């Protein structure tokens, strides 16, 4: 049974209601092994090749927590300005679903390892919005289900399901915000900026690559509306598995419109989970949310409490990198670019690459030019992230050095980049093999210029007659004759010189 709700246009909804959000983000840690056993976490393995009695929940198996898992949780907590528990336990979250062979998920309940923090996020116009963090706790991922027999591989209509437990037990950190209020019409933007900032932070900490498209970072969006000017929160919906930045923004926007529609019509919001649909940005009803007590949490008897010493916590605090937002602002100033430019550098995933390229000797302007131009295009065409291209920042720096020294012009440099991407070797090797050098030998250039003038008498006459703009055609002819290896500016000078015209 589907109830069709009239969506209220966003601005109209905001005129009446104040949105309150809660964001739950799951981060899959990049540890080598699972949270409670030594099975590998390597992606792409054959089904059920990375399981053991512990993660299969076989009787008598005893879990032992992964030290790097705990360390990563503490680092995340510290970077989010949280307090770190002096003593905390794991808890069993009991539910019956075949994605967890134990019939419970090992999680943390009322004693999270980190709590009471905040993350400042910067919106596109530079405004800083503080998102308060309720908690960050340790838990484990579930297995992967494949539904067989349904029309679209979805659960509905499936005849049975197949389970691969390779993912069951991979460490997860769940980060939960406090209710986010006061964002108003900027709620969708705040949600997106928060998840983006968190992703950068997780990467900067080196605890996970946090690739959303690979499920390494997933977001659940809680949303409720309350009439403007009132205090009491409305009933919330929880949209599960919103797995891209754009989707986070869209899900918030959609739910604001949907809630407003239900409330305007005098209806009540049901506390339920909802599914997000990438294709049209809508959400549909999932299941009625279980109450926390239905999970019958209790302390995990097989794992002893975690009591991080204050010395350890301080040691980890000392290893924290510069926060991404602070670093971004510093780089933006150093590079002398606008907020908007910085945003597109960030969106392209190019910040670290540009930094590495400048560290390898390039000036920041040319580093930016290559990574955002030629290389971004190539990444786009091959459907790869920028940092997966087969070219290193040092190689890009070498190309820009060759341009700066006049050994290459832009056109040739592009060919060198192309050669490196095609696996032909280092920039210098490509230059050598392809014979790409700017022809600066005046004798050779002069001959090419003379030939071009002789072959294009009519154009030469025009130029002699004062139509200097026509020189472009002759420059083109020379560039063609030298296979693009001439210095175009010098060619132009030579042409005008030969024809006795002032540039």
């Amino acid at each position, binding site marked *: 049974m589907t109830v069709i709700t009239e969506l209220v246009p966003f601005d109209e909804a905001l005129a009446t209601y104040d949105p309150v959000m809660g964001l739950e983000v799951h981060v899959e840690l990049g540890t080598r092994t699972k949270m409670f056993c030594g099975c590998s976490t390597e992606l792409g393995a054959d089904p059920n090749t990375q399981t053991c009695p512990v993660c299969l929940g076989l009787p008598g198996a005893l879990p032992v927590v992964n030290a790097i898992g705990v360390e990563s949780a503490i680092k995340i907590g510290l970077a989010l300005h949280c307090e770190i528990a002096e003593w905390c336990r794991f808890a069993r979250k009991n*539910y019956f679903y075949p994605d967890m062979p134990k019939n419970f998920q090992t999680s943390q309940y009322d004693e999270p390892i980190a709590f009471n923090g905040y993350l400042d996020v910067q919106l596109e116009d530079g405004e800083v919005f503080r998102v308060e963090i309720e908690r960050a706790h340790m838990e484990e991922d579930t297995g992967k*289900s494949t539904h067989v027999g349904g029309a679209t591989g979805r659960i509905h209509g499936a005849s049975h399901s197949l389970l691969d437990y390779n993912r069951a037990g991979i460490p997860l950190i769940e980060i939960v915000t406090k209710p986010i209020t006061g964002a108003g019409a900027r709620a969708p933007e705040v949600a997106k900026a928060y998840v983006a900032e968190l992703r950068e932070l997780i990467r900067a900490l080196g605890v996970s690559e946090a690739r959303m498209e690979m499920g390494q970072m997933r977001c659940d969006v809680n949303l409720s509306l309350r009439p403007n000017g009132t205090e009491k929160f409305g009933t919330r919906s929880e949209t599960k598995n919103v797995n891209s930045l754009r989707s986070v923004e869209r899900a918030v926007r959609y739910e604001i419109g949907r809630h407003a529609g239900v409330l305007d019509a005098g209806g009540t919001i049901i506390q339920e989970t909802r599914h997000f649909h990438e294709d049209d940005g809508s959400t549909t009803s999932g299941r009625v949310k279980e109450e926390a007590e239905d999970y019958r949490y209790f302390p995990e008897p097989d794992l002893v409490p975690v009591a991080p010493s204050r010395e350890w916590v301080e040691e980890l605090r000392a290893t924290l990198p510069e926060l991404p937002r602070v670093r971004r602002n510093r780089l933006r100033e150093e590079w002398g670019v606008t907020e908007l430019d910085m945003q597109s550098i960030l969106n392209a995933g190019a910040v670290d690459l540009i930094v590495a390229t400048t560290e390898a000797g390039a000036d920041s302007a040319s580093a930016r030019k290559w990574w955002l131009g030629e290389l971004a295009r190539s990444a786009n065409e091959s459907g790869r992230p920028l940092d997966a291209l087969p070219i290193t920042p040092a190689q890009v720096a070498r190309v820009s050095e060759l341009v700066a020294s006049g050994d290459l012009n832009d056109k040739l440099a592009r060919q060198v980049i192309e050669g490196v991407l095609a696996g032909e070797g280092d920039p210098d090797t490509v230059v050598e093999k392809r014979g790409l050098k700017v022809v600066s030998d005046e004798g050779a250039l002069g001959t090419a210029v003379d030939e071009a003038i002789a072959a294009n008498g009519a154009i030469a006459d025009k130029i002699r007659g004062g139509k200097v703009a026509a020189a472009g055609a002759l420059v083109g002819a020379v560039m063609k004759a030298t296979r693009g290896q001439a210095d175009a500016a010098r060619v132009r000078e030579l042409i005008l010189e030969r024809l006795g015209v002032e540039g």
Partner: protein
Amino acid sequence: MPGITREEVAHLARLARLELKGEELDHFAGQLDDIIGAVARVSEVADQDVPPTSHPLPLTNVMRADEVRPSLTPAQALSGAPAQEQQRFKVPQILGED
């Protein structure tokens, strides 16, 4: 006075995915009531000054290094499965949840 109602037993049965008949609910409600009553007697001797104990041994921070250990073979992992397909555990259609 501890106690468990028939409705609570029905709710727990649903969470545990157990199908119980009406007379079973009555039967188990009575039995569970006895068990809860027996356990509740602990609190008669354990007063406020005795903290709840989840772990009998005074141990904390038992952790392992993040080093890969051999896993089971898929054949071993699947050996206890009532049904399998494509090297995966085959389970009945999952209803009502996603």
